[in-house]
């Protein structure tokens, strides 16, 4: 068994490569192609036309990326603010109709978004929220919130009430207790939930399209017409750009939190260094 380990590792790595990296190759080729037809394995001619269109000029790509990320971040912030009290209530208290609350909270994962969005659309029309950034943000909350609540709940379940009791006995009021005991413990769950929330929000097409009615332009909105029959080269370029955006925002979030932690630690270390 032991001997086979490097071999198994190699096979797994290869599999991973085929599953994840390989699909990007034709995408890359396609984005640089100038007419790529069956039965050619590689394009006959290359050009920068698609990238030229996507990255410069009047395509509005940069603005769409900005809008996408802006929406994702606002949505995630709202989710975190909603998820912490929700998780607290669902984990700590037993109350009548708890199962119903949980079902409602987690329903968006199970029910197709299209069903919910038709109702939301009607309501938003009456409220005048369609075609606005606020409307899109609110609509994005519904498919993302369950993931954040779920992740924070898992963190909450591992936080024994004793910790809060201990902080209480040391004289910490509700706010200090939350800030210095509960929040640090929930951090991993919050990070996991936030990452999911950002990714899901970035990749929303249908909800953004219906609520935004084409007025709120995110990257998927730009991408979609090219995929469904327009220009495969431009669609490929947008797809790659989308992947880069998603990965970059995830890495960005990760780096932000890690530096936050590191700074906190070094601050403590320097404080010690001075005093001892």
């Amino acid at each position, binding site marked *: 068994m032991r001997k086979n380990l490097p071999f198994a590792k190699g096979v797994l790595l290869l599999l991973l490569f085929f599953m994840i990296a390989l699909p990007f190759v034709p995408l890359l080729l396609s984005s640089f192609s100038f007419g790529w037809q069956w039965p050619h394995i590689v394009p006959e001619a290359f050009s920068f036309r698609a990238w030229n269109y996507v990255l410069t000029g009047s395509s509005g790509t940069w603005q769409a990326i900005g809008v996408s990320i802006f929406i994702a971040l606002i949505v995630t912030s709202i989710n975190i603010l909603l998820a912490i009290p929700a998780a607290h209530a669902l984990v700590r208290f037993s109350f009548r109709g708890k199962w119903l609350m949980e079902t409602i909270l987690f329903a968006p994962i199970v029910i197709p978004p299209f069903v919910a969005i038709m109702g939301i659309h009607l309501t938003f029309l009456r409220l005048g929220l369609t075609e606005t950034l606020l409307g899109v943000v609110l609509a994005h909350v519904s498919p993302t919130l369950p993931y954040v609540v779920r992740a924070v709940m898992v963190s909450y379940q591992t936080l024994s009430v004793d910790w809060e009791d201990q902080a*209480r006995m040391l004289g910490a009021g509700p706010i200090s207790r939350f800030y210095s005991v509960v929040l640090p413990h929930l951090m991993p769950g919050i990070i996991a939930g936030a990452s999911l929330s950002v990714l899901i929000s970035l990749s929303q097409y249908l909800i953004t399209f219906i609520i935004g009615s084409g007025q709120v332009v995110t990257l998927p909105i730009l991408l979609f017409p090219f995929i469904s029959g327009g220009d495969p080269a431009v669609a490929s370029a947008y797809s790659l750009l989308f992947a880069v955006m998603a990965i970059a925002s995830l890495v960005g979030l990760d780096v932000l939190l890690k530096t936050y932690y590191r700074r906190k630690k070094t601050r403590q270390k320097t404080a010690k260094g001075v005093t001892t």
Partner: protein
Amino acid sequence: MSDLQICQMKKQYPQTPKNENTAFSLQAVNLTIREGEFFSLLGPSGCGKTTLLKLVAGLLAPDTGEIWVGERNLTAVPAEARQFAMVFQQSLLFPHMTVEDNVAFGLKMQKVSKKQRLAKARGMLKRVGLNGYGTRFPDALSGGQQQRVALARALVTQPRVLLMDEPFSALDPSLREEMRELLSQIQKEFQVTVLFVTHDREEAFYLSDRIAVMSDGEILQVGKAKELYERPQTTKVALFLGLKNSIEGIVENGQFCSSEKQFNFSVGTTTPNGQCHLILRPEALQLITKESVNPSDGICLHGIVKEIRFSHGFYVVNIHTAEYFLECNLNSQQVAHVTIGQDIKFMVDAKDLWVVQNK
């Protein structure tokens, strides 16, 4: 004087459908703990001692009853404002803070400046024998060290009362003894009032000025360790304190008579008539040898030695008398004369015969 007073404190837990036997409840508790006293609640697990402690802390709300410290009624004061400190069974050190910051946490909550609180925290860490550990994180400490930090953290704010919920029960025996000594020293030094919960009678006896023995949500007896041990008021207390030689009998006209008629002696007319138990402490059974003087008063017994076991420093000898198995403690010199199967004579001094009423 700022004694801690617990008046008519009651707590009834709601009956849960899962738990079909009667729900746990804490009977009305009245206790006065003097300032600077080390007071222990001793009882088996599930007897309500932790519930009582949490009621005193304010972490649980009582159904009825009041808490007073000196002239102040603290019943309505929330836990964080009572200026009590508490050490739990687990050390519960905040993992994202250094040891120093953990100890200084209580002072931070009191808005003490950073310089001052860190200085105080370091002083306290030195006092519990952890000088130089301040910059570490809690996970780099051993269990005993963590509990020391927890103790330092509780004491640094100079609490009115220090509450301790089986703080050493998760530690191994030798460490437990070390912590016991440390706590005893520190308690005397700081003159802090301590309410200590434990199920370990040795621990309670070692540390406490006074002990309350609890069982099934009720305080059975309060007293000094020696009082409790030599003069238990009920068989339950006796049994919990490890006094296994309990002989059923009846008192009539100042005469105790065991149900098997083996014991028959005068207990004085002050003892009321009725069913009762004779409690014989294992060290009260004295071996009669050729040299030993015959007892002037008291009773003599004889029995066959069934078992001899060594227990730290002395021997536990099981003797089968006519009707009862009795346990007695002998030292190694005495044991030298004794073999298993031998018929030995022993006596009990009249003052060591203790009769308790059945309740």
